[in-house]
């Protein structure tokens, strides 16, 4: 049962070969069994899940179903869920129970989904390893061949990716500010898409960096991602940055093929010191697409190398302001103080972890009097150049193919020596957020240690369909059948 994809499980449910209660019960059992090892969930909601499942069975019995009726999902604990604790993996929100449901999760519930629980993440989605969660690190279900070293699942959507890879969720919601969907998807050997900025509503998603944050799904196949995104996406009048653009049939686009498409290869992504196996996989991906009828075109994104430095101005600046609301007054944890200022300072010192504090400090500094022009304004201008690079490239090509991350999953505790080393994980993914474009990571192969590697497909704004078409073509060609060592079976 755990080997069924979301699309297959959905078909079995609709054919009444499988009940939602059976499926959910099996997944809840797997969660109970494996979550202690993985720590992929912060909160599990078995009772709620069975309530959802029984409702799904009732509607299936009536011959009615939504796009996701009876499908058990993990929800990244950054999405507000009404009546269910929502922590953002931070101590400061540990006691927080939202009296509201985020638009994205409300859309999933509308379509009949079953929520298994709230997935772990880097605190406030700030991280690339899931090491910054106040609720403990998440362990990647994959191991290096012949080694028991616990590896990171990537981040920030590490819990979502680990849960899906280990088959303790059939799919999951995630969010991506600089690579937080694509990098963990690559590290865990699954697919994940960050759609175009504005495609999914940000209403009810705990904000990290508002101009970059986008929700998206992670799942085991490209088609599963397409199905999930079809439910999550859609115009929302409650989000001023939500795009009033119809949601196409993403799943149908997966079958389009790539014949006649022009695929760009940005030469600046070929970095000095890139692992040879990553470069080899990239070349392999291009060959697969060429074989499937696409034309490969060299393009240049000259400012892409500045994406990461730009990101580390823009994202912390927005975060420093977005996280000002966590002050111990209206919700969340409060630490006492003799006066208001001391209460604030104690609450925020105790409530935020080191990485969050670091980013708030950087963001506060780059916006402060006398430094705004040198940092923030400059970063916005470089951001404009990054977007221009992409816009010019998309005059020549229909999609771009790049590696998702510069390495496979690394060990817990590695790359922790200085923050910049960790930040470099997102070097291939961040420019996509800076330009607001859709980006999909597809598992395409293994490194020498047997760890999964992903390829990234980048598309034009609101052209997720082409991205899915290319991703599905790579998926078909790669025939990725490797499985993580920790996974639910049966």
């Amino acid at each position, binding site marked *: 049962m755990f080997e069924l994809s979301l699309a297959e499980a959905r078909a079995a449910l609709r054919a009444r070969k499988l009940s939602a209660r059976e499926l959910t019960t099996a997944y809840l059992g797997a969660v109970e069994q494996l979550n202690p090892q993985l720590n992929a969930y912060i909160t599990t909601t078995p009772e709620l899940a069975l309530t959802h499942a029984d409702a799904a069975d009732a509607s299936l019995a009536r011959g009615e179903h939504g796009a996701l009726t009876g499908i058990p999902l993990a929800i990244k604990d950054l*999405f*507000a869920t009404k009546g269910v604790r*929502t922590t*953002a993996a931070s101590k400061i*929100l540990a006691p*927080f129970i*939202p*009296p*509201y449901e*985020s638009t994205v999760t409300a859309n999933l519930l509308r379509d009949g989904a079953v929520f298994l629980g709230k997935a772990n993440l880097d605190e406030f989605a700030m991280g690339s390893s899931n090491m910054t969660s106040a609720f403990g690190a998440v362990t990647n279900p994959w191991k290096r061949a012949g080694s028991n070293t616990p590896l990171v699942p990537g981040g920030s959507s590490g819990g979502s990716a680990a849960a899906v890879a280990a088959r303790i969720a059939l799919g999951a919601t995630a969010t991506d500010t600089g690579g937080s969907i694509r990098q963990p998807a690559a590290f865990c050997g699954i697919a994940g898409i960050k759609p175009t900025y504005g495609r999914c509503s*940000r*209403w*009810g*998603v*705990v*904000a990290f*960096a*508002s*101009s970059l944050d986008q929700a998206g799904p992670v799942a085991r196949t490209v088609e599963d991602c397409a199905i999930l995104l079809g439910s999550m996406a859609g115009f929302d*009048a*409650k*989000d*001023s*940055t939500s795009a009033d653009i119809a949601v196409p049939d993403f799943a149908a686009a997966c079958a389009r093929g790539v014949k006649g498409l022009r695929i760009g290869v940005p030469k600046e992504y070929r970095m000095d010191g890139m692992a040879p196996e990553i470069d080899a996989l990239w070349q392999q991906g291009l060959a697969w697409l060429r074989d499937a009828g696409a034309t490969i075109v060299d393009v240049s994104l000259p400012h892409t190398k500045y994406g990461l430095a730009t990101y580390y101005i823009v994202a912390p*600046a*927005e975060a*420093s*302001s977005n*996280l*000002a*609301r966590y*002050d111990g*007054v*209206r*919700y969340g944890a409060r630490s006492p103080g003799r006066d*208001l*200022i001391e209460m*604030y300072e104690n609450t925020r010192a105790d409530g935020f972890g080191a990485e969050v504090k670091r980013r708030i400090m950087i963001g*506060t500094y780059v*916006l*402060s*009097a006398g430094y*705004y022009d040198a940092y*923030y304004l400059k970063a916005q201008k470089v951001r404009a150049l990054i977007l221009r690079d992409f816009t010019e490239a998309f005059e020549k090509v229909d999609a771009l193919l790049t590696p998702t991350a510069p390495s496979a999953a690394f060990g817990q505790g590695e790359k922790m020596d200085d923050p910049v080393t960790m930040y470099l994980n997102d070097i291939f993914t961040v420019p996509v957020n800076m330009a607001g474009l859709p980006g999909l990571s597809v598992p395409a192969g293994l490194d020498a240690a047997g760890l999964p590697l992903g390829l990234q497909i980048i598309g034009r704004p609101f052209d997720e369909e082409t991205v899915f078409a290319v991703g599905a073509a790579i998926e078909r060609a790669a025939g990725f059948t490797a499985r993580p060592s920790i996974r639910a079976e049966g």
Partner: protein
Amino acid sequence: MAYTLEGETGSWEVVCGLEVHAQVISKSKLFSGASAEYGAEPNSQVSLVDAAFPGMLPVINRECVAQAVRTGLGLNAQINLWSRFDRKNYFYADLPQGYQISQFAHPVVGEGKVEVTLPDGSTKEIGITRLHLEQDAGKSLHDQDPTKSFIDLNRSGVALMEIVSEPDIRSPEEAGAYLTKLRQILRYLGTCDGNMDEGSMRADVNVSVRKAGEAFRTRCEIKNVNSIRFVMQAVEAEAKRQIGIWEAGGEVVQETRLFDPSKNETRSMRSKEDAHDYRYFPDPDLLPLVLTQDFVDGLKTHLPELPDAKTARFVREYGLSAYDARILVMEQATADFYETLAKGRDAKMAANWMMGDFFAALNRTSTTIETSPVSAANLGALIDLIADNTINGRIAKEVFEAMVETGDHPADIVEKKGLRQVTDTGAIDAAVGAVLTANADKVAQYKAGQEKLFGFFVGQVMKAMAGKGNPALVNEALKKKLA
């Protein structure tokens, strides 16, 4: 004669600019659908957005934007078709987001001007620097508990317009005249009720002093002054304080101060060392505010007639003096009352009745034009009764007093009290005859040349007729009999 303050070293000029915070009239808040109404139960008009719950997002209210544009048009100002919202970051207990959404770099309204009339009748132009939209904060109550402050977020997110003047104001009177005029324009436009008691209009007052011909010296900002009178007092008190410092060889420090009306002095606010680093940046939850010229033109078409134009029209159309016209135009309701009254009647007479007996009655009975028992239609009917000789002017005053008391129609009062003017020449001749017979001695004196006794006879006849005689006919009859 320019206003100056005399110090030990000579005359000082006062330089003042005002930042007025005016609450926008709208049903809901600037970025949320919570009610913006005044006076509700604590925290009962608070949306999840206003309380800054995680993941909540602002969506702008069209009407608030329209109100700002209307106000800009009313201030003869540049409307910026492209503007933007920024975050002003600071921590305070009644500021849930930890920032205020405001327009720092690109306000929706740019430069404009207001013409004010000073008490001596002269006029002066005060420049408007800008007008922008921003959110109000909540309210902290510090007197409810010995150890805690209480927070009410009902005001949190209500739309404000901040209207910034140029430092063109040179005296307390000019400050008062500017605020009065600004409030009048806002009320005419229906964009702010101007109610300073409820805090829907308040001013930050920037004051500096200088010797004639000098460049500007350091200014201080007096925060949140909530009446026009206090603003005028604060300007003078602060100017005198600064003159004292300069003349003692000191240096005025740029700072934020508060005005204490009970002591008539300003005092420094507890200084906050980092209060001035607001870290403004464009709010990434919002997009640029882009207006079309059509939108602006549509609002312009429906703009009401504003005070300056109305004053000019009253002078032109009704033949009033500029002074009278300005008084009648002070409030929209007064002007409307007057126009109803003057329509088809003697405009001058209508103005005299309004500014005389009517205003006096409002004052005496503590009523307003909206609550007055005397409606424009009834006052008009009274004027009509005079014009068609149903009653004379003296009786009219008596009828008016009865209208104030009862709210009745003047015709009913005249009928009920039998106050109709007597124009029957037979009755008048009879009364004249009786008076002259009873005062034969005075008739003799009159005929001997004491002509001023004529008035005495008129009075006696009117008295005999209980005041109801038509004065012209009485005069005529007397002259005939005494000839």
